[in-house]
Structure formats: C-alpha cells, structure tokens
C-alpha cells in the first residue's frame, strides 16, 4: 500500500492504495466518484475515459502509481469547463443518451477532441471517437451533438 496525493476536478484528494490499482478503481471505490464507468477493463471501449492533464486517458489501464502530479478531470468535473458545458448542453438538446452507460466516456473524449479540434469534420469525429463504443448505437446522435457543441462554442 502507498499514499498518493491527487488533484481531482480541482480538489486535493489523498488515497492509500496498492500502487498497481488502476485509476478507475481509485475513483470509483476509494473516492466514490462513480460517474466514470468500468466497461472492458482493457482500454478497448472508452467507458472509463477521464482526462489526465487534459489528455483523454483510459483510467482502467493506468495504475495509480503512474498518475504522478497530473490533474485528473472526470465527468463530475467536466461542467467546470466551457467546452465541457457546451458538450453537456448539446447532449441534452440532442437527447443523445439511451442507456447512458458509455456516455460519460463519450463526453470526456468529445471534450478532448473539441479542445484540440474546435471544428471537427466527420472524419475527425470518426477517428477520434473510434475508441468509444456504444452498445445502444447512439453514434448518429453523438455526431450531431458534437457538431452542435462545436457550433455553440463559436
């Protein structure tokens, strides 16, 4: 076991966990922040996506020992950010969510995409969102909501 100081959504947090524990389980089990979802556990589905120092990151495969002093942003903190708010609003306006399980990961990936590519093309969206799976197949609404969010950001 080891003690780690984290910055999660701007708040200092301290956890005492095994160094090999994935960030996902630190968030869910230790900090009780269950917005970030467990999907596949092998970084193949994107449900566990959070931001590490602004980089969309699969929290299920990143041991807490490798997080370092990078700030962690989760779905619970995404509304603190103007791009995050625009994406959340677009998600509501387009009624994107069906079962919702993958959507926190989808939103975290979209925020990362729009921060680097404010006006994404369809190709940009397909490439960047290709690692986020949705078993309800809400992909068409996701694409529309991304474009709506991008338009709102201008």
């Amino acid at each position, binding site marked *: 076991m080891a003690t780690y100081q984290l910055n999660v959504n701007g708040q200092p947090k301290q956890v005492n966990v095994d160094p*090999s*524990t*994935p960030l996902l389980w630190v968030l869910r089990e230790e900090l009780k922040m269950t917005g970030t979802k467990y999907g596949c556990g*092998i*970084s*193949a*589905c*994107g449900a566990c*996506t959070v931001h590490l120092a602004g*980089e*969309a*990151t*699969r929290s*299920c*495969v*990143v*041991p807490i020992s*490798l997080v370092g002093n990078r700030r962690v942003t989760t779905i619970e903190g995404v509304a603190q950010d103007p791009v995050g708010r625009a994406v959340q609003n677009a998600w509501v306006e387009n009624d994107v969510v069906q079962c919702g399980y993958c959507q926190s990961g989808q939103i975290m*990936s*979209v925020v*990362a*995409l729009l*921060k*680097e*590519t404010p006006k994404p093309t369809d190709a*940009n969206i397909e*490439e*960047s*969102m*290709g*690692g*986020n799976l949705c078993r309800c197949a809400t992909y068409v609404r996701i694409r529309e909501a991304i474009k709506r969010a991008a338009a709102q950001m201008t």
Partner: protein
Amino acid sequence: MLANHRLLFPVFLLALLVFVTCIGLSASAGNESGGKVSDPKLADGLAAWEQVYSVLTSPRCINCHTATNYPQQGDDRHRHFANVIRGPADRGVPALNCAGCHQEQNADSTGVPGGPDWHLAPLSMRWQDTNDRPLSSALVCRAVTDRSRNENMDGPALLKHHQEAALVLWAWSPGRRPDGSMRTSPPLSHTEFVDATRRWVDAGTPCPRGR
C-alpha cells in the same frame, strides 16, 4: 578433328564469358557500394547488418514501423485494437492518442506497455509494406541509412540511437502482457545489438544489394 576444333572454340569462348561474368557478379554481390565481399571488414559489416536487421524486424521494433495508418501489437503483429490510428504526428488523434493508454513506463499490473513519448515511427522509417509484410534486408538498410529519411543520422548517430534511445531500449524491457506473462524481446541482447551496429557502422554502414 579440325571440324571438331572449330565447333569447340565458340563453346569454349561462351563458357569463358559465363565464367568471367559469374566471377564479376559474385565479387560485387552483397554490398551497395560495389566493394568486394572478399574484403573481410565489408563482409563483417554486412554480416553485422543482418544481425541488426533481425532485431529491427522483430515484433517489439517493427510493430511501430508500419507503412499503414495504424500500429500493430503482439508477436503475431496484428492490427492494434480500439481503432487506434497513426494521426498527423504519429501519436494518434485527439481523444485517442498513444499517451491515452501508454504511460511513461510499462504498466505491468494492467499489461499496457509504456515508455517516454510513446509513438509510431514516421512513415519515412516504415519497415513494412502496406500489406504488413516486413521489407527486405536491403530495403530496410537503405531506409535506415538514408539521411533524408532518418532524421539526418550518420553512422555514429545511428549507433548512439541504438545505444540510448528510450524506445529502442524499451524493446529489451517490454514488460508484461495483460495475462501477466513477459513480452518477448528481440533475438539479440541489447549488448549484442549495439555490438553488431558498431561493426556495421565501422564498416561504413554497407547495405545488401537488391530489393
């Protein structure tokens, strides 16, 4: 008898021509610069290159030296899962960057390899064709030694790259697979690889002939 001699003479000339041609071809075969393979240093350099080539085309190295828009993974060199693509800077695309999973070091508890600035080699340094088949020894050698394609590295710089570059060194500390087993390393030890590179560089970085 005289008629037989007349018949044999052209045959003899033809045989002599074939012999001389073969001698000439074998003397120049095996190196790009046209030197003699009978030159021990050159022969050793070419042999050393083949050792280097055996490492470069091992999965730990060649999986990220693709000619396609995606990396590979595993000893069977299958396409990287999760729809990962190369991206404009060889580091993936926004929201699906290499660094989104691959950290600065191996994550043995989750089976994800890692190293500093994890990324694909640029297309100029592709060592495969677009059907994911490794290029020949001669073609890889030409790519590696072409300073317009290799970030302007001369022989000593190539040696230093093989000695010190973080992602090169990673091949000999590739960490554990998700099932906990160790990833395979290249066929030579790092010391043997550097030694082979040094012999190849000392010989003037000769490349095999052909395609």
